[in-house]
């Protein structure tokens, strides 16, 4: 699974991404997969037709309050974010494998730097395509080894996406030739898992980067040299004003290079003339512009002028038109301004956490499956999506995302919400397990032997619930859940807190992280996004003792099923696991909002569909007359 956050390094990358969405406020809306693909998900003026032109400058609005500020693609924990990777580094430096193909979060072989990996037992062979760096040297297997050596040397402490790769799974790496690389794994792994969650992290680095302040170094061949090289590159990446002309950062293999970089977020890219990929940029330039809030961005969208015009922007949640049932989008408020509206789901799931390790005395209650199921029946996902989300969201059905619909999702998962809103069932579960349900009052345990081990007679269903403030639809969701629970005598003591405080408290496994466990339920609002480990296999989120297993759910059967997904390439292993785990409720599933609802200028083609991995390929964009 992805790293999180925030936007937060999944928990690095995942959290980070979500944070982005939350903080910016532009994000947080999610679209059902069926409605996302191609032009069928569009509204307003048609964006088809016209004659393709070469040149022009397309302008993309950055998410609110975010600006790229770290160009080195071997991104440290401090700086890993959607903004730094998707809006900057990935445009300049191409990863070994690109994920995001149309509206699917799958590997895109066409624009990957390497051909599909060839697996043979515990050995994998990677053949590089003919890509060139902008300084005239080819992209070689040694450039890949350069990355792997650095990850071996400093990944554990300095690489934000670190999962233990390659050291924990790879026993041998060999550059057979300038274009061929082989890896020997400690056992045969699932090909999908190895490609989507391990090889997905690699970005070849040019030899020009293998240096320190003292001069050229040898990280490509000597791992012990890598720490110093990393320190030098990290320092250089903090010199924002040097990005454009830096002898390091100006060596690119992506379709774009920087022509202007302002630390306030105004960035201009121009085509890299030596780009080796299949689609060369048609635009003369691609600009990113910053915004303080989504409201200010929307003002510019509504009132474009010569100096302030946006070709790809987004609509704030509060300004979104409600989406009618069975429609892909609502009536586009900017159709008359020449824009087409498209919602973009994010490849991830959303949940609030229940703390199995709570020290408040409620841990024994939370460990009871019937209680979690009763609570799940009180979350009205459909109503939240139809109401506060105005239709731009998807139901979380388990540990694998339901939007967009992928082959990773089991047939059972495709059937929808496993716990549709049903207070009657919830009440029945409680009363049949020894609880004296007092509607509107305080439900207490009447028969401890039925309530469950560790639950005391008279113990109330009363829980503290810190949550991150700042996102209107989520606050409405919490209020609704609180009200639904109160109707069965369950008291949720909602505690609004800043995002950072909630993540610091509840986004990590409190026992493993050795931090206080004195909370019952929590929600930082971001859930989990699958990037840059794109296969939703669950080892970092749901296994016993995993740091991102925030609630401390632990089940040996679940662990065995997860292990099976890591070694078995068949999707059936993934189906078996998710079908087992979804009703176990290791986290409490809640709606996943779309990342954003985009407005795309009708005379700019090639933008849609954007990828649910949140990557951009502006080399595909072109203006029409």
């Amino acid at each position: 699974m992805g790293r999180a956050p925030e936007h937060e390094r999944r928990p690095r990358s995942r959290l980070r991404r979500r944070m982005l969405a939350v903080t910016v406020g532009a994000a947080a809306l999610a679209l059902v997969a069926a409605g996302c693909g191609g032009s069928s998900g569009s509204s307003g003026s048609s964006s088809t037709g016209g004659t393709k032109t070469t040149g022009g400058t397309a302008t993309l609005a950055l998410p609110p309050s975010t600006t790229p500020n770290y160009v080195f693609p071997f991104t440290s924990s401090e700086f890993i974010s959607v903004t730094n990777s998707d809006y900057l580094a990935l445009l300049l430096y191409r990863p070994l494998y690109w994920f995001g193909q149309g509206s699917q979060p799958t590997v895109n072989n066409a624009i990957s730097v390497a051909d599909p990996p060839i697996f043979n037992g515990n050995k994998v062979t990677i053949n590089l395509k003919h890509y060139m760096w902008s300084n005239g040297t080819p992209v070689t297997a040694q450039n890949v080894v350069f990355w792997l050596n650095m990850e071996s040397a400093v990944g554990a402490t300095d690489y934000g996406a670190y999962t233990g790769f390659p050291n924990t799974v790879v026993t041998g790496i060999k550059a057979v030739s300038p274009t061929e690389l082989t890896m020997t794994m400690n056992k045969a792994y699932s090909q999908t898992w190895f490609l989507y969650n391990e090889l997905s992290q690699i970005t070849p680095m040019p030899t020009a980067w293998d240096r320190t302040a003292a001069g050229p170094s040898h990280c490509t061949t000597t791992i012990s040299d890598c720490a110093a090289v990393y320190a030098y590159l990290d320092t250089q990446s903090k010199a924002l004003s040097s990005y454009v002309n830096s002898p390091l950062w100006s060596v690119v293999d992506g379709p774009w290079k920087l022509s202007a970089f302002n630390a306030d977020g105004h960035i201009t890219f121009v085509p890299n003339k030596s780009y080796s990929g299949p689609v060369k940029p048609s635009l003369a330039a691609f600009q990113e512009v910053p915004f303080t809030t989504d409201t200010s961005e929307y003002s510019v969208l509504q009132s474009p002028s010569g100096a302030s015009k946006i070709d790809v922007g987004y609509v704030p949640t509060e300004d979104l038109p409600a989406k009618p049932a069975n429609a892909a989008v609502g009536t586009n408020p900017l159709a008359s301004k020449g824009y087409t509206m498209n919602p973009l789901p994010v490849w991830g799931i959303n949940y609030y956490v229940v703390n199995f390790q709570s020290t408040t005395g409620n841990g024994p209650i939370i460990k009871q499956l019937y209680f979690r199921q009763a609570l799940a029946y009180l979350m009205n996902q459909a109503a939240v999506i139809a109401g506060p989300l105005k239709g731009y969201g998807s139901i979380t059905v388990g540990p694998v995302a339901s939007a967009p619909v992928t082959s990773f999702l089991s047939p059972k998962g495709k059937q929808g919400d496993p716990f549709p809103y049903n207070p009657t069932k919830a009440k029945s579960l409680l009363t049949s397990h020894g609880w004296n349900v007092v509607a509107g009052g305080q439900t207490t345990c009447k028969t401890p032997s039925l309530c469950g081990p560790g639950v005391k007679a008279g113990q109330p269903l009363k829980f503290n619930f810190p949550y991150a403030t700042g996102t209107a639809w989520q606050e409405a969701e919490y209020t609704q859940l609180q009200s639904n629970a109160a109707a069965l005598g369950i008291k949720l003591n909602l505690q609004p807190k800043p995002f950072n405080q909630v993540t610091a408290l509840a986004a990590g496994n409190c026992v493993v992280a050795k931090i206080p466990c004195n909370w019952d339920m929590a929600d930082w609002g971001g859930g989990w996004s699958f990037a840059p480990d794109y296969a939703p296999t669950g080892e970092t989120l749901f296994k016993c003792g995993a740091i991102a297993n925030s609630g401390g759910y632990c089940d040996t059967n679940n662990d065995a099923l997860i292990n099976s997904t890591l070694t078995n390439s068949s999707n059936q292993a993934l189906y078996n696991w998710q079908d087992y785990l979804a009703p176990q409720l290791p986290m409490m599933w809640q709606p996943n909002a779309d990342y954003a609802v985009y407005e795309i200028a009708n005379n700019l083609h090639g933008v849609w569909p954007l990828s649910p991995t949140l990557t951009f390929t502006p080399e595909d964009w072109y203006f029409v007359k």
Partner: protein
Amino acid sequence: MVVFLIRRVVQALVVLLLVTIITFALLRMIPGNVAVAIMGPSVYRDPAAIKLFDTTYGFNKPWYSQYLLWLAHIAQGNLGYSWKLNQSVVSLLAVRLPKTIALVGISTIVALIVAIPIGTIQAVRRNKPADHVFNAFSTIFYAMPAFLLGILLILVFAIKFPILPAEGPQGAGVGVIFTEFNAMILPITSLALVTIALFSRYMRSSVLDNITEDYVRTAKAKGASERRILVRHVLRNSLIPIATLIGLSLPGILSGALITEAVFNYPGTGLLFFQAAQSSDYPVLLGITVIVAVATVVGSLLADIAYAVLDPRVRYVSS
């Protein structure tokens, strides 16, 4: 006068020191691990990364040691490094502060130019139609939240009648303010209208207080014209509290600038502070706090000095 100045400067330094101590202590009392807030929860699995962060930024030391270290850095002009923005606080402020100063400075000057005559007219025409009209407008703008006023201005002048840009000047440096000055009109108007309402009400009260003073009656008895009495005597004395008010209003105006900057996509210091607070970016919070505290204390000091210059009684009483 010298003794008065020395005393006020010493007081100002003490206030500044207290502000830094209180702010530093409050920030350190915020719950949650700073390394986790910055790097995300998954960093828990890398204790070495947390340790590296704490060591790098001094979080492994007692808070008072951190404070003294920070104070020593400030003395050298080093306000720290923003973890979130990957820039030194000084370089951030070098870009953002001039923009805020320009916005606040121009809007304050505009407000004074408009508010002083309005307040004076209101006092002279007390309880007449002009007084009631201006009173109504100043009450409306004084009560109106800055963000609402900003949004209304955008709706009317950028969207409904698109004659002005919806956002402030974009681009690096404060020079862009002058090359795209039309983009400054709405932000300045937004901030100035609220300030005009404040200043004009004070000016009205001040003129009313002075207009009944003995020296006015004396001037009238000597045959001075109404205009001369108003301009040479009443207005000059009435401006004394306004001078004080400007200094004391600085934090309030900066707060208003925060909202105005957000609404008009004008990345200044106020917005930087708000974002830093959201992301636990302590160096930025502390850096801006110091700058604003210095500005406030210096503003207050200058107001006191101006007051002393304008009104000799202050010097005599102080000494």
